[in-house]
C-alpha cells in the first residue's frame, strides 16, 4: 500500500467513525466466549476417546471414512490397501520430514518398502513450466497428507502448508488420505485457536480446515460430491 493510499483510507474511515452509530459496540475488544463446562473438559484433551468417537460420527455422516490404527506400521498397511484399491503405486503427498513434524515418523520409509512411491511436488513459479507441472500432477488418483489437528465437533482435519507440505495433495486429487494422531484432536475451531497457538499464528501461507469430501447442492438442492476437490476422504486415526 502506498503511503498516499494508506493516508486516504485512514482519513476516510476516521471521518466516518466520528458520526458512526454502531449498536452494541464496545471500546474494548470483547473477551473470549467461555463455553460450557462440558466443552471445556473436552477441549483440554483429557478424553481423547470421546473426542475421537465424535470425530468419527461426524465424518461418517459426511460420507468420509475413518480407520483407527495403533501403529505407523498399521497406518502404512492401510494406505497400501487403499492404493491397491485405486490401482496405483504413485501418491501425490507430503514428504518424510513433514510426517515427522506431525508425530508420524517413518511413514514414508514403510510405504516405500511396500512398493509405493511419492511424487515430487515442487511446482515451478511461473510460465509454461508451471502449467506443465500442474497438468502432469492432475491425473494422479491419490493424495496423502498428514494433519496438524482434528476438530471433533465437525469431523474436520486441519492442515498447514509448509516445507514438504504441499496444498495440492489434499486438493487436486479425486481421493485424499490423511493421517491424524488422535492426541491432536480438539473439540471445535474456537478451541483449536485457543489451545494451539502454533496454528493460530498461521505457520504457513495456507491453513485449511477440511470437513468431509467436496460437495455441491447448487442444482435443484441435490447433493453431489467431488465437484472440485476430492470426492472421497479417508482419515487414518493413529
Amino acid at each position, binding site marked *: 500500500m502506498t503511503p498516499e493510499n494508506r493516508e486516504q483510507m485512514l482519513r476516510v474511515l476516521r471521518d*466516518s467513525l466520528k*458520526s458512526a452509530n454502531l449498536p452494541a459496540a464496545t471500546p474494548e475488544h470483547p473477551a473470549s466466549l467461555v463455553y460450557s463446562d462440558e466443552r471445556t473438559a473436552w477441549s483440554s484433551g483429557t478424553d481423547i476417546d470421546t473426542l475421537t468417537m465424535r470425530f468419527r460420527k461426524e465424518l461418517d455422516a459426511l460420507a468420509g471414512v475413518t480407520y483407527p490404527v495403533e501403529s505407523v506400521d498399521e497406518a502404512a498397511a492401510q494406505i497400501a490397501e487403499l492404493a491397491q484399491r485405486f490401482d496405483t503405486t504413485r501418491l501425490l503427498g507430503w514428504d518424510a520430514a513433514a510426517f515427522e513434524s506431525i508425530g508420524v515418523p517413518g511413514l514414508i520409509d514403510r510405504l516405500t518398502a511396500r512398493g509405493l512411491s511419492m511424487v515430487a511436488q515442487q511446482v515451478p513459479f511461473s510460465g509454461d513450466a508451471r502449467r506443465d507441472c500442474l497438468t502432469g500432477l492432475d491425473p494422479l488418483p491419490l493424495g496423502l497428507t498428514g494433519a496438524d489437528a482434528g476438530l471433533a465437533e465437525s469431523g474436520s482435519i486441519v492442515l498447514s502448508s509448509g516445507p514438504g507440505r504441499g496444498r495440492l495433495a489434499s486438493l487436486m486429487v479425486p481421493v485424499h488420505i490423511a493421517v491424524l494422531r488422535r492426541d491432536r484432536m480438539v473439540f471445535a475451531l474456537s478451541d483449536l485457536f485457543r489451545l494451539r497457538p502454533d496454528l493460530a499464528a498461521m505457520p504457513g501461507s495456507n491453513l485449511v480446515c477440511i470437513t468431509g469430501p467436496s460437495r455441491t447442492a447448487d442444482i435443484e438442492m441435490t447433493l453431489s460430491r467431488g465437484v472440485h476437490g476430492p470426492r472421497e476422504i479417508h482419515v487414518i486415526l493413529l
Partner: protein
Amino acid sequence: MSVAPATFYKRVEEAIGDQRLQGALDLAMARLQATRSASLKTFPDSDAVRDQARRIRAHTLSRLDHYLDEFTRNVEAKGGTVFYAHTAADAVRYVCDLARAKGVQSVVKSKSMVTEELELNGYLEATGATIVETDLGEWVVQLAHDHPSHIVAPIIHWTREDVAKLFKKEVGATDEDLVDVPQMTAFARRTLRRAFLQADMGISGVNFAIASTGSVTICTNEGNGRLTTTLPRIHVAMMGIERIVPTPEDLAIMLQMLGRSATGQKLTVYTNMLTGPRRQQEGEPDGPEELHVVMLDNGRSKLLGGELGEILYCIRCGACLNICPVYQEIGGHAYGSVYPGPVGAVLTPGLRGIADFHELPNASSLCGACREVCPVRIDIPRMLLKLREEATHDPQVVAKATPLWLRMGLRGYRWMALRPGLFRFAGRAGGVMMRLMARDGWIKKLPGPLGGWTQSRDFPAAPAKSFTQRWQEQHKGGQAKQQERSARS
C-alpha cells in the same frame, strides 16, 4: 450491479406469475430453514454465541481504521500487497492494470459478491483476458448470461433440465454427461479443471480477514476457492472493507455461525485461510507467487458514518432471505440488485442511494423475522423504516414514486376531509357509485389507475349505510347526545 430499478413492480409481478420459480423457492426455502434450525441446536448456547458474534462485529467496525491498518501491515509483512479502493472504478482499474502488467490471458474466479457489485468480469474481458466462474452455480449463471438469485444458492431458480440444456448448447456436453446430477457435476469438474490448469490469475472473494495475522479466509464447499487461490500464479482477493475480524479466535466464532446459518453445516467443507503468497524461501512446494488484496469501500465508509452502519455487521449467510415472506414469494431477481432480500433492501439503497432503489425498503412486511434469525442480530426493520422515512424527504423519490394524479388526488382529499359536510356527502356519493358498479356486493374491476386495487383481489362495495349513520342509529337517545357533548368539550 442492477437491472433498471424502475421496473421493480414489473419484476415482482413476473416472479409471482412464474410457476417454476415458485416451486423452486418453496422447496429450497423450506429446506434451508430446517437445516439452519437443526444446526443451531448443536451449539450448547446459540444465543450466547450470537451475542458474541454481534459484539465482535460491532467492536471491529467501531475501530475499523485501526484493524484495517493492522491487517494491511501484516499482509505486507508476509509478502502480500494491499490496495484500498475508495470507489468501484478504483478497484476495477487496479485489477485490470495488474492483469495487463502481468500479461494475464486467463482468469478463474471463485464466488465473490464484491466482484458482482463491481461488474468486474466485463472490464476484465475488455483487457483481452478470458474469465471463468468456477462455482458450479455461478458458472451456470455466467454461461447463461443470467444473474444469481440467492447469496448462497445462486441458481435456485434453475431446474436440472435447464442446466442440462445449457451444458449441451454452451459447452458441448453429451447425453451421457447429463443423465443425473452427479454426472453433470463430474462433467463440470472436468471442464473447469482445464480452466484452472491454464489460468494465470485467480480472483476470489473474502469471507473474513484477520487483522492480527494478515490472513484472508475463503469458504467454499466445492473446493473451487482453494483451487482458485493455489493453482494460478497470481491470487487477487477482493473484500469489502467491513469483512474483518481482530483475531483467529474471533474468526472461529464467525465461521461456526456462518456455516450453521447459511446451509446448516458446522463448518463449510473448505475453510481456507491464506497468509501471504507461497513461501518459496521456506520451501513451500506450491501456491501463488503473488497475493493482492483489494479492500473495496464503494460507499461503505459513508454507511459506517450514518444511521445504517449496523448493516455492515452482515456476514452474508443468507438466513434473512430464507425466512423472509417477501423473498420467499418473489425470489432474488425481483430486487434488481446483487444483494437481494432484507439485507439487500437496506444495503443497496444504502450504498447506491435511495433515489434509484426506493421500492426496496417497501418490499417488506416489517414482520421482524429477519432480525430474529440474523446470526449477528442486525435490526433490519429499524433500518427499513429509516430508509422509508428518508425516501419521503427525497424530492426525486417523491416525484418518481408518487405520480402527479396521485399527488393531486391526495391534496384534493385533504381539502375535502377538512370539511365534514362535504366529506359526508362525498362518502355517500362514492357509496352509491360503488354499489352501482358491484355485483353481489363485490367490485371485480375498478376503472383507470384504481385498477391496481382489483388486479389480484376483489374490492368490497361500500355498505348502504355509512359508519356515521350507523353510529348515530345505534346511539340514539342519551348516549349519542352524551357522546356529542364529550366530543365537543
